[in-house]
């Protein structure tokens, strides 16, 4: 088991703060979006995407990155894939992709050139590349849709947003990898509200049936859904037991503790013969005091005063 130093934890923490600030700013600027479920996912996303850049052992080539990808080549066949099944947390994913380099001028324009003439022209004309693109969230004629779209945004592996479908899509990609004898992994983040959907359990059953050990699901267990606490709306517990009974390897972690996230992801990649679920206990709205655990911020943008306070809390 790899040993991770404190320096890495610190730099992941710094990066997560930057991502959180982007998220709050994006949703405030757009005037709508889902801050709660975006913020709860930030530490996991940051670990997945930035271990590659921030771990000194990784940089020296002594260690494999948790997620192997090349932002300059989004279509690289052997890349690891990440699917955000809880598509409403798109702002967090967009912020991560921007920081990772997916929205750099050449990458973005090459991607859009083949897929969407109108967006290609708009992006080129307005010169919105890199993190600048983030302030065009949900804007007409620009790539960052309210929910992820694989044909409009580089780095998006599946068009999601209708809850419950991303895990199945991940199963499909995992089956394709097996068929092609490729070694890439598919990481799928699911939300806990999504577990109400029958399709999640269909996918869980089939992933175990097809022995998809290249599939790693991460449950963002923030315990709240749009209408209230998950256990009040539709009881989900005992979550680990249910997935184990479906044939999955399950591990529970603190979804805001980088060491635990890293170890769990490492362990998941070692599992053979079955898929693995990481139950990441998180706090909805994490990082902004008045959004933490607040159902009201599931799908509501902060007002100006709240926005200022949030940015201040996140280090200005």
């Amino acid at each position: 088991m790899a040993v991770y130093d404190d320096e890495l934890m610190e730099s992941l923490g710094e990066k997560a703060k930057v991502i959180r600030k982007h998220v709050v700013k994006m949703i405030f600027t757009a005037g709508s979006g889902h801050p709660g479920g975006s913020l709860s996912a930030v530490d996991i996303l940051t670990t997945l995407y930035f271990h590659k850049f921030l771990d000194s052992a990784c940089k020296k080539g002594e260690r494999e990155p948790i997620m192997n990808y090349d932002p300059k080549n989004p279509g690289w066949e052997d890349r690891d894939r990440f699917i955000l099944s809880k598509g409403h947390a798109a702002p967090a994913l967009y912020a991560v992709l921007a920081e990772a380099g997916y929205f750099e001028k050449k990458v973005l324009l090459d991607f859009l050139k083949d897929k969407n003439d109108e967006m290609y022209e708009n992006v080129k004309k307005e010169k919105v590349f890199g993190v600048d693109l983030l302030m065009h969230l949900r804007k007409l004629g620009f790539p960052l849709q309210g929910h992820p779209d694989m044909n409009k945004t580089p780095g998006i592996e599946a068009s999601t947003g209708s809850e419950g479908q991303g895990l199945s899509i991940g199963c499909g990609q995992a089956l394709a990898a097996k068929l092609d004898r490729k070694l890439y992994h598919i990481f799928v983040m699911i939300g806990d509200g999504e577990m109400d959907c029958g399709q999640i359990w269909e996918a869980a059953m089939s992933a175990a049936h097809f022995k998809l050990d290249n599939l790693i699901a991460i449950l963002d267990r923030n315990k709240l859904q749009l209408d209230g606490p998950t256990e009040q709306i539709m009881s989900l517990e005992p979550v680990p037991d249910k997935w184990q009974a479906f044939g999955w390897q399950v591990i529970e972690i603190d979804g805001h503790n980088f060491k635990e996230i890293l170890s769990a992801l490492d362990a998941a990649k070692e599992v053979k013969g079955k898929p693995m679920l990481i139950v990441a206990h998180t706090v909805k709205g994490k990082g902004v005091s008045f959004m933490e655990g607040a159902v009201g911020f599931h799908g509501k943008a902060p007002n100006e005063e709240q926005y200022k306070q949030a940015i201040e809390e996140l280090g200005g």
Partner: protein
Amino acid sequence: MAKMKMDSQRKAFATTLVELGGERSDIVVLNADLSSSTKTIEFANVFPERHYNFGIAEQNMMSTAAGLAAAGKTVFVSTFAVFGTGRVYDQIRQSIAYPNLNVKIVVTHAGITVGGDGATHQITEDIALMMVLPNMTVIVPADAVETAKAIKAAAEWDGPVCVRLGRADVPTITAEKDSFEIGKASILRKGKDVTLIGTGIMVSVCLDAAEELKKEGVDARVINMSTIKPIDEDALGKAAVETGAIVTAEEHNVEMGMGTAISMVIAEKKHVPMKRVGIPDVFGESGSSDELMEKYGLTVKNIVNAAHDVLRRKDKLSRLQLMSKRLKKSEKKREIKKKEKRKPKPKKGKKSK
């Protein structure tokens, strides 16, 4: 009708899939506990590693198909039409059609001719559901020969396709040598008085109706509209201009299917008398295929009656047109006479210029 060779569309589908599987390693096949019914079991027998059975979990199957397609596979998904369209409409919409992925949904047991299973298994609104989806192509082959061609064309097509097949054997009315192109209708019988447009099993019924009409001296054109979307507007425009009357026939809810799609084109392109034949806006029931077709109006007689109706209207229309032409002519004559009367007589001593 003369005795025709009867063949199974499902069998043609299965044979073609095996053929394609041998030619292309990117072809994978998914089914939901119905591989013996949809016949994809034949593919599974030859290429077991490229065939996946999802059990009775069509939603998962559809989104998994999207994932396989996103990773470069050409995916054939097969189940009954009622489960492969209605039950999974959202998965098709969100996971497949919206991202425009290479998933080919081949549904069998469509329409009322499913027979004994009854209304729960007789989907008569699947064409409507698929037709309304952006990026989706909808094909309803007329017989087994055309099914094979449609499956090959679907495999070549870039993007999602829905191919609708029936359960029962159907008369073979197209030939191997006939060309097949997605989006192109074919004329199976030339005619100038009225056009009968059929899709799926109703094409052969249209041919029979044309024979009946011939006995009355009516020269009916028969078109096989095997692609419902994108619909062949050129063929429709020509039919309207050249025959001046259109009848459509489909094994589908008549309120919102191929006939509806055609009526929209006709209304906007060249307005001529038109009548739609199909299943009324009701659910079906158990019975044999033949009994159900009779009871729900999918008959030669209904198509012939519809042809009579449009021909009457066409006739009335042409008489009206003739009358109005004559009227205009006589009005013109009168105008000329009036003008001549009004013309001032040239005055003496003045030169005109």
